[in-house]
């Protein structure tokens, strides 16, 4: 009973301290604020209800990030808007040009991020928006720390290449 209460208090502490970061990452994944709020809410409901299954194989915060990312991914899959996001990036760029919106840096990076492999995209969000260290990201995504470093490097390379293209 004491452990149960301790874990609940620990989950609450993470929620209160980092809610804004959880929400930001969920928004980045879902591109919809309301769906993101629901995903974060549902993630912590799930965490509270299943906190007994937290086996302390890693930090509690990483476990909460994993649940939140999974909830957001589920929400993204369920959202019809995901169909647009999953279009090939080349189609989106062409559509943007055809609409006269121009091929700007910011619109380009949004499209490029949407086109990144999911692991690269999630790693980028957790590193940049949640300010997590490699170990926590590795625990949250279920990969090795070295994989996090390599994934981030690949994501950076893709983004830098895009920015150089835009400058030309």
């Amino acid at each position, binding site marked *: 009973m004491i452990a149960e209460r301790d874990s609940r208090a620990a989950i609450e502490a993470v929620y209160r301290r980092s809610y804004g970061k959880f929400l930001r990452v969920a928004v980045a994944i879902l591109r919809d604020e309301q769906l993101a709020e629901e995903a974060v809410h549902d993630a912590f409901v799930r965490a509270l209800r299943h906190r007994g299954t937290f086996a302390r194989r890693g930090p509690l915060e990483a476990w909460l990030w994993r649940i939140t990312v999974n909830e957001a991914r589920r929400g993204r899959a369920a959202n019809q808007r995901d169909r647009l996001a999953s279009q090939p990036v080349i189609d989106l760029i062409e559509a943007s040009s055809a609409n006269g919106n121009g091929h700007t840096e910011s619109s380009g990076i949004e499209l490029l991020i949407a086109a990144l492999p999911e692991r690269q995209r999630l790693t980028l969000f957790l590193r*940049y928006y949640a300010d997590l260290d490699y170990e926590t990201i590795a625990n949250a995504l279920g990969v090795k720390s070295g994989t996090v470093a390599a994934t981030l490097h690949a994501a950076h390379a893709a983004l830098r290449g895009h920015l150089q293209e835009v400058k030309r």
Partner: protein
Amino acid sequence: MTDRVAELLEELTPRYDDRRGDWEQVVADARHGAASRRRQPRARRARVLATAFALAMALLLALVVPATRAEIADAVRAVLNGGSLPGSTIPAADLPDWLRQVRFASEGEPRVLAEVEGQEMFVFRQASGSLCFEFGGVGICNATEEDLFGDDPVALFGPTLPPTGTGRFRLWGLALASVERVEVTFADAPPRSVPVHEAFGIALDAASSPETLVVYGANDIRLATLDLTWRWRHRPAL
């Protein structure tokens, strides 16, 4: 990461550092065990009203002491259609001041359905024929048959505050079946049981954390377990 990429990512997704979330809602949904997504406050408010009406109906039923749900339903319909009110009468001079201030209450020959900590739950009939249930500054009138029937063996009202607006909360209930006792369980305290004589009232400390109301019938057979967390979370402010 390059500074320019960092700037673009910053523009891409806004910061939410000022957001605090709703931890109490998270806890309530976790306890409730229901799907938490797409919460609907309006629908919940409507459900509260419907539950309140169901409680009133249950109260009527309990007064007639029906043994079966069908008998209870018949008894409630009879009361709604102008039949004799259940409960015990008290002299007009002994009516509490708060009830005297309720329109038509004194003329409606109010009857006592339940009592807790010196406060009664009353039922009376308006001149128009419609029934009113009063819980101490809070009441329900014009309930219809559809409003009052529920699926549980008891119907619940509240939590309500005493007429003074301070003190312990009251949770009121009306038996819709042969109920012997109800037991309130708490998150951080031992359960508390009260006997049921057709209707019942339970006083709850504001600082307590009631979780469920367990309903027991004859031979202490458990009839139902009603979740109290949502109801408690929406109790009136002290």
